[in-house]
């Protein structure tokens, strides 16, 4: 069994830490604080799951980043979980339309995030 390669992208250090600790049972986890950083990591390191904050700060949209990953044949196989403070149906629909595999609204239970990630990696 290969080690799951998970990347957490969030501009808030506390939230990166939260996801990292939450998903620790699944193996080693890399973190990135911006879309550029995340893209660099994905190009260098085989990645199976990206946990992506919708609000990346500095005008960056996690939804757009998700769409670009899913549109690029080289990265379209990577599973994406979107994390967002916006739980309105139109926001959720926009996230799913961008190709996200799951959409989790903050604040969330770490147990739910772990269960979703586990299922996506099976």
């Amino acid at each position, binding site marked *: 069994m290969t080690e799951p390669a998970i990347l957490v992208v969030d*501009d808030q250090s*506390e939230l990166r830490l*939260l996801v990292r600790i939450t998903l620790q049972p699944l193996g080693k986890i890399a973190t990135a604080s911006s879309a550029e950083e995340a893209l660099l990591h994905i190009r260098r390191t085989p990645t199976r799951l990206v946990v992506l904050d919708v609000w990346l700060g500095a005008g960056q949209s996690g939804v757009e980043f998700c769409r670009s990953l899913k549109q690029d044949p080289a990265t379209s196989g990577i599973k994406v979980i979107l994390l967002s*403070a*916006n739980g309105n149906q139109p926001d959720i629909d926009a996230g799913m339309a961008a190709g996200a595999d799951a959409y989790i*609204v*903050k*604040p*969330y239970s*770490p147990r739910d995030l772990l269960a979703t990630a586990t299922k996506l990696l099976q």
Partner: protein
Amino acid sequence: MLEAILPPNEQQRLAVLLDLKILDTPPEERFDRITRLAARLFGVPIAMVTLIDAERQWFKSRVGIDIAGSPRSTSFCAHALLQDGVMVVEDATHDARFSGNPMVVDAPHVRFYAGHPVSAPDGSHVGTLCLVDQAPRQFTEEECLVLRDLAGIVTHEIAARQLQDHLAEQRENETWLRALLENAPDGVMMVDEDGAIVSLNPAAEALYGCTSADLKGRLARSLMVESADGIADRVHAGQTVMMEGTGLRLDNTTFPLEFSVRALRLEGKLHYAAVVRNVAHRRDSEAATRERDARRSKYLATATHELRTPMASVLGFSELLVKREFDQPTGQELVNIIHAQAKVLISVTNQLLELARIEAGGRAGLRMGTHSMTDVLDQSLQTLSPQGKNARIKLIIAPDVPLVAADPQRLQVALANLIGNALNYSKADTMVTVTVQPQEHRGLPGVEVRVADQGIGMNTEQVIRMYDAFYRAKTLPEVPGSGLGLAIFKEIIELHNATVEVDSAPGEGTVVSLVLPAAGGRR
């Protein structure tokens, strides 16, 4: 004596008579000249144009008699009205219909009567032209023909009179209509079958900034950027169609246009009546409303994000601590994060409430008074002092600073937010200079508070967005704050009618200068 029966068309006859609007009007030469002529021609003392009303006969014109009318029941003319030709009574005392008639028995002692009906334009008999003598006499066939012709002239004059009334009425209507069109606030245009402008009012001229002569004959569709072809079917189906678009003037300038149009037939030809109007004002206010709504909804989304992010940490880490085992240092780190994020949560909540209170209260929510700016500033600095940063502040107070009109509590919050930012976005070994000095405020005495730091500064975009709620320059992620401080600062400053100037460049520090109007007194 016999009373005359009513004519079979009595009701319609009366309606027509009323419609002539001739009853009880002053004498008119057009009728008087006929009665004068008749009296002289036939050598009778009395000649009249009589109109038969429901209960009376009324004399529109009379010669040789003083009364204006008499009851219909004793009227000779009521009898004459019933026939088409001349009615002649050569001697009333020998006529069963009139022998007991008070007009015969008493004054005016009628013996001879000859009358011929006169008509309204629709042919209804409305009265007579009649001759009366106090002596009996004969009336020849020839005289009957002359009386008939004179009655015909009366009938003609009645018609002419009505026509004249109608014309006057129409002229009056036209005057009103013209005044209405000349002064209508909206542009009105008449367009012919081919789409060419036939006529337009001054508002339409003003709208297009040119004269009627410039526009007449032009195609109406050339006065709008968009095509109106899509509405043709509905207009031809008889609907009034309203459309919005862009008006195009002859000099190619444009304006937001609204027009409504409907088809009509004029002298057998298809035409279009159009009302045109400049809706710039309304579009502006609609755009402003849309912008406000968009800002509000973005604000709400951002506020949600700013509240849920620390909540995610508090909830997430506390659940992990409850469910999983951690070594002591890691556990302590997580507890510290929870504590810090809970503090962020309460600070964002408080600031959101503060901002909402200030916005909702407006100027009426301020407790205005006359205060010394240095006192307000002292209070502000005290709220900052627990952070141990006062040592970094260099205070310069000029002499003769006027008092200001201010809500001291609010102004203190605004200044603390501003100075707090200057401290947070500059290095701990640099100074923040706060200067208070007299300064003109829109041409009147005022007080300037100038806050200058040697911090990281801002680029143009950051300066433009510095007041946006939750906007934070992310260049120094370790700087604490909710991003609401300057939004609150701006609200408070605006309510105080103060002016603000910002001078900043990346790496060169920031100078914020705000000037409040002086209250009038001096310190």
